[in-house]
Structure formats: C-alpha cells, structure tokens
C-alpha cells in the first residue's frame, strides 16, 4: 500500500480526484448562482425550498433527479459515439484545469506551452458536441452540432489571436509565467510600485475579443445557437437524458469555470492581487476573479437575445479576426518600441 501511495500513479490519482471534486463542486455552485441570479433579474426568487434555506441544495437535488432518470438511447443512434460524446465534453473541459495556476505552487502541471495546451484542450469539448449532434439521429441535434462546429471554427481563431497579445507581453507561453509577469510592477509612481493586470496594460481589446470568443466557445447567450431551445428544441442535447444529460450540463458549467480561470490568469492577473500573499490567498483571489467573469456571463445570458448563425459568422470574420490582428500588431509595436 505505502509503495502505491508513494508512487507517481497514486499522486496522479489523488490529484485527479481532488481536481474533479473541486471542479464539479464549483460547477454546482455556478449552476446555483445562475438559478438564483437569473431569478432575481426577473423579479423571481428561484429555488427556495430545497435544502431548507434559499434552496441551496437545488443543483444537488436536480443531479439526483437526473441520475434516477432512464438513460435513453435513440434506436437509430450511433450508440458508441452517442454514449461517448458526453464523456468527451466533460473530459475535454476538465483537462483544461491541468494548467490553471491557483497559486504559485498549486498547479497540476505547469507546462511550458500552457496557453497552447489550454486552447487545444478547450476545443475538445466542441468535438464532443459535434459527436453528440451527429450520433443522435435527430435533425435538430444534427443542426445543433453543425452550428457548434461552425461556431468553433469561427471563434477559435480570434480566441487564439487575442491571447497572442498577452503572450507577446509576457514573453512566455506558461500560464504561471504569464501570471508572474503580471505580478511584476508595471511602473513606479514615486515610491509605490503600481501593479496592473494585462487588461489594464493595453489589452482591453484583447480581453474583449477573448471574452466574446469565450462566450461563443461555451455556447452562452448571445451565442447559444447550438442549443437555441426556441429553434432547435435543445440542439445537440435533444436526445440526451439522465446521467448523460447531466454530464453535458456539468460540462457546460465546468467549462465556464475553466474558461473564466484562463481568462483571469491571462488578463486579470490570475491568483495575484497587490498586497495579498499569493501563496495563501492565491486560490481565493483567483476564484473571486472567476466569480466576477461568471457573473458577467450569467448577466449577459439573462439580458440579451441570441444572434443568428450567419450573423455570428460575419461578426467573427469581419470584426473579431481583423481586430485581434490589429491588437497583435499594436501590442508588438509597443513591445518593440518600449
């Protein structure tokens, strides 16, 4: 036994278990936040009874309900693909967390190519969505899956290009490196060192593009066309039920967490906050920043209607891509000049 615990595999197992628990619990919290915030934005109260007070146990109760439901697979579905799809989505989302630095030391794996890895792993989920849409043997699912694929292609590019500005600034592709670079004082105002995250170091446009592209990647309103319940019933999720639906559901919210964590690290200084010890308060600082971004995403969702698929495409190619290229050019120029 002890040999096992000392081993590499045991440590890995422990890391995976803890990360999974943390990620899924945070996803539940985000689900609950969405329920409550959306309700109050509509003068409702939302969940109220589950768990005794404020309905805090609602996501858990929902989860238990979903698990009890029958796991239906359509007769004409491509069974292996259909069954695999939710796992791909969840796995792809969870995989992103490998490189998210919660504090200078609390990181699963500080990869040198962290940013590259994160963007690559983040798009695995979309493959899962396409799998779900294709395998369901349902026209609505198929259209939802195709929309998701088109959306991925359109928005992966500005997403990557927006990050390039930050990478140029930091001079590294490592996530921890980028956060550390933001912890360096930007300039000195007399005696005091002024720390600024990249958002305020001229990456406003970069952050804007990244955030919008992130919404599109996550299929959040105003870019939720792959689900678009008023058009495509439930899009690629139409045929899913029970535990597999839950996995998609958790995956969506874990994805929000993951992308927000990346955005926080890249643009908002990650675990670093001036005056707070990163080693101790790092995770809290990061979670606060993630919370802020998640709130904005929820806020957008419950305020805006959705775009049309072709409008989204033209928005991506006509505005986002050129803008992000301009952003790179400007950033690079400044980097060279100063």
């Amino acid at each position: 036994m002890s040999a096992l615990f000392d081993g590499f595999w045991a440590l890995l197992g422990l890391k995976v278990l803890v990360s999974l628990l943390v990620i899924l619990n945070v996803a539940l919290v985000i689900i609950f936040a969405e329920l409550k915030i959306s309700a109050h934005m509509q003068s409702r109260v939302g969940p109220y009874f589950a768990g005794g007070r404020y309905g805090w146990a609602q996501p858990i109760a929902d989860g238990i309900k979903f698990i009890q439901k029958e796991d239906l697979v359509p007769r004409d579905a491509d069974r292996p693909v259909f069954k695999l799809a939710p796992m791909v989505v969840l796995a792809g989302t969870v995989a992103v967390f490998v490189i998210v630095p919660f504090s200078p030391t609390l990181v699963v794996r500080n990869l040198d190519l962290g940013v590259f890895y994160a963007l690559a792993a983040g798009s695995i989920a979309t493959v899962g969505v396409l799998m779900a849409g294709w395998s369901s043997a349902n026209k609505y699912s198929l259209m939802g899956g195709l929309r998701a694929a088109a959306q991925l292609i359109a928005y992966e590019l500005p997403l990557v290009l927006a990050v390039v500005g930050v990478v140029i600034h930091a001079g590294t592709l490592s996530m921890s490196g980028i956060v550390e670079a933001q912890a360096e004082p930007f300039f000195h105002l007399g005696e005091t060192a002024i720390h600024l995250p990249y958002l305020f170091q001229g990456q406003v446009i970069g952050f804007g593009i990244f955030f919008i592209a992130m919404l599109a990647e996550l299929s959040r309103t105003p870019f939720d066309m792959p689900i678009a319940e008023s058009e495509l019933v439930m899009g690629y999720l139409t045929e899913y039920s029970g535990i597999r639906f839950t996995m998609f559901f958790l995956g969506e919210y874990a994805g929000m967490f993951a992308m927000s964590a990346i955005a926080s690290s890249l643009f908002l200084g990650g675990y670093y906050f001036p005056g707070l010890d990163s080693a101790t308060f790092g995770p809290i600082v990061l979670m606060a920043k993630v919370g802020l971004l998640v709130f904005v995403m929820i806020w957008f969702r419950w305020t805006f209607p959705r775009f049309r698929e072709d409008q989204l495409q033209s928005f991506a190619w006509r505005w986002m891509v050129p803008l992000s290229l301009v952003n790179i050019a400007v950033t690079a120029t400044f980097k060279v000049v100063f």
Partner: protein
Amino acid sequence: MTAVDRHRLSMHHSEVQVSVELQTPDMTLNLGPQHPSTHGVLRLIARVDGEVIEEVEPVIGYMHRGYEKIAEVRTYPQITALVNRIDWVSGFANEIPFMVATERLMGLDVPERAQYIRLILTEMARISSHLVFLSSFPLELGAATPLMHALRERERVLDLIEGVTGGRFHPNFNRVGGVKPAAGAGSTQKKVIQDLPIEFLEQSRQAMQYVRDVCDDLKDLVVGNEIFMERTKGIGIIPVDKALAFGVSGPNLRASGVPFDIRKTDDYLPYSNFEFDVATGENGDCFDRYTVRLEEVIQASRIIDQAIDSIPSGELQAKVPRIFKVPQGEIYVRAENPKGEMGYYIVSEGGRGPYRLKIRSASFSNLSVLPWLLQGQLVPDVIAILGSLDFVLGDVDR
C-alpha cells in the same frame, strides 16, 4: 421561380458555383406540433436546404374544437361562454363583436355605462394580450428576461379584469344588452348587480402607470438592443398588397404601414369619444410588428385613462328577457381585437341559438400568409417571423 432559384439569384456568382457543387438532397424538417416555439400545436412541414427553407406547409387543426358547429346547438348566452375561449389571451375582447352583433339583430340599445365598462375591459384585454406578445417574442430570440418583466405587470391587469368579471382569462361578463346583470331573481344579498368593484378605477389608473413603466423597460431591454434589431430588422417583410390579399389585419397590417384600425372606422364601442393614435410601422418587418404593439399598449392605457375619467353612471343592462329569441336576420360585426379583425357573421332564423355562426378570427388569416412569407428564410428567422405574427392556436383553429 422556386425559392431555391430566388435564393440563388440573390447570391454572388462564386457562391452559386459552390452551392451547385455541394448540391445535397433536401431535408424535411418537422417543426411541431410539439416544438417550443409553435405556441401550442402548430406544425410546419418545412423542406430545408441546410438552414434555408425552400417550402413550408403549415398544418393546423390540432386544436380544432368545432365552435361553429357547437354554436348551432347552443343558445346565445351559452355561446358567450364559448367565444372567450377562441383567443384565450384576450378572452374579453372576443365577446364584444358577438354581443354587438346579437344586440343589433335584436335592436337593443346598450346603456352607456355598460359600453364604457366593455371598452375599458377590452383595452385591458388588449394590454394583457400585447404584453404576452411583447414578452414572449424576445423569448423566441433567446432573451428570457423580458418575459418575466412584462408578465409581472400583466398580472396587475389580469387582477383588475378578474376583480370585475370573476375570471382572469375567460370573463364571460358580457350579456346580451349590457354587462353581467343581477344574477337570478332571488333576494339574497350575495348576488348583487355586478357593477365595478370599489376602487377599481383608482387601481386601474395605477396599473396603467405600471404598464407604461414596463413599456419603457421593454424599450430599454428589447427595442434598443442591437442584437434584437439585428435579428428583426428587415426580417419577414409583409408588403401591403400581400397583407391585404391574405386578410392580414391588426398590428401585423399596421406594421406594414396601413393605418387601418377598426376602432376608428366602425362604431361597435364608443371609441370616438376618446383620443388615441393608430400606431403604424414603416417596413412591415418583425421589428415594426414589435414596436407597433408596444405603442398600442401605451395608446390603450391612454384610452383607459380617459375612459376612467369620463365613465358615466347609470344602468348596466337593457331590458332583455331571461329566455329570448333573436329575430330573423343576418349580420356581420367585426371588432379590432388585439390580434386583428375578429368578426362574427350570425345567421339567425329566429331561434334561441343562431342558425349558422361564422367566426372570422384574426390569427387564422394572419397565419395563412406563412407559406408565402417563409419561403427562402432561414430556420432561426422562421422562429422570429412566427413569433412576430402573434397568433394563438385557439384563434386559428377555433
């Protein structure tokens, strides 16, 4: 020219070649009868090329209740209870043309106070119906919040309607000759003349203010929203000549720029006593259909405010026997309902019930333009167009 040809013509040359090379067999997409956006049980059989609609065939009748047949075995008072179930979102307004038609056949003079009460409640029904549209249309486009904001204020209006009539959706408050009379001939105090309850006028005034406030909110939340404009401007344009030939009426027609309002042209209720504007659009697209209804809510609240100020006192009922027969004759009376022109063609052969009752409902004609309108549109636009026509399946199928 088929829809595909039209679509192709509108494309650039290089695009044409691509689409020819990628010619794929068309897919039949079944929207409904169980679909989140069909407002009940409308079914659209659409032949789609990708997301472009080539041809669409609406299938209705899932809610056909055969009111025209049932009306032949019902008495006039019983039909009153039926007709407010045709367009259940504005139940009260449905009763008016039927009542007016019956009264004209019988040659009755309705007391002025009853007419004012009818008018106030009709406009309240209009507000509640339009608020449902104003809130559910953004929902079709993916915005859920306007729904709750508008329904919150609609609840006040429904409470007022319920306070007077006893029913939120199905008031059944009009009687031939006026509004609900003293029930029965008994002497018990529990059944009294159903005049307006106390404080109704004051509460209405307050509710109208809330309604105008929520209209301002909707202007911020929906009309001014760039994404909403992007989704609705230039989408689903109904030109005037098509609208007329298909019998499109009400706000849908006015959105196309025709200032046709039966409240102004006919005299079924004393609308000529009040000042109000007929809201019209310019382009006849989904955006105009939204803003026209938004403006109509504000105008309706204006009418109600004026009616509250000037409501006369007096009788609520003309003298009508409990069991009555309607003289022989034929009549068509139409009214400006929230959805459009609602009319009843009554053929009376002197019985207690009509010999034939033709119900001209607005949604039926408004919806009949769909096969023409949806050709060449995208699937997401289909949803937007469907929503913007503001139909109720009960009003389509009757």
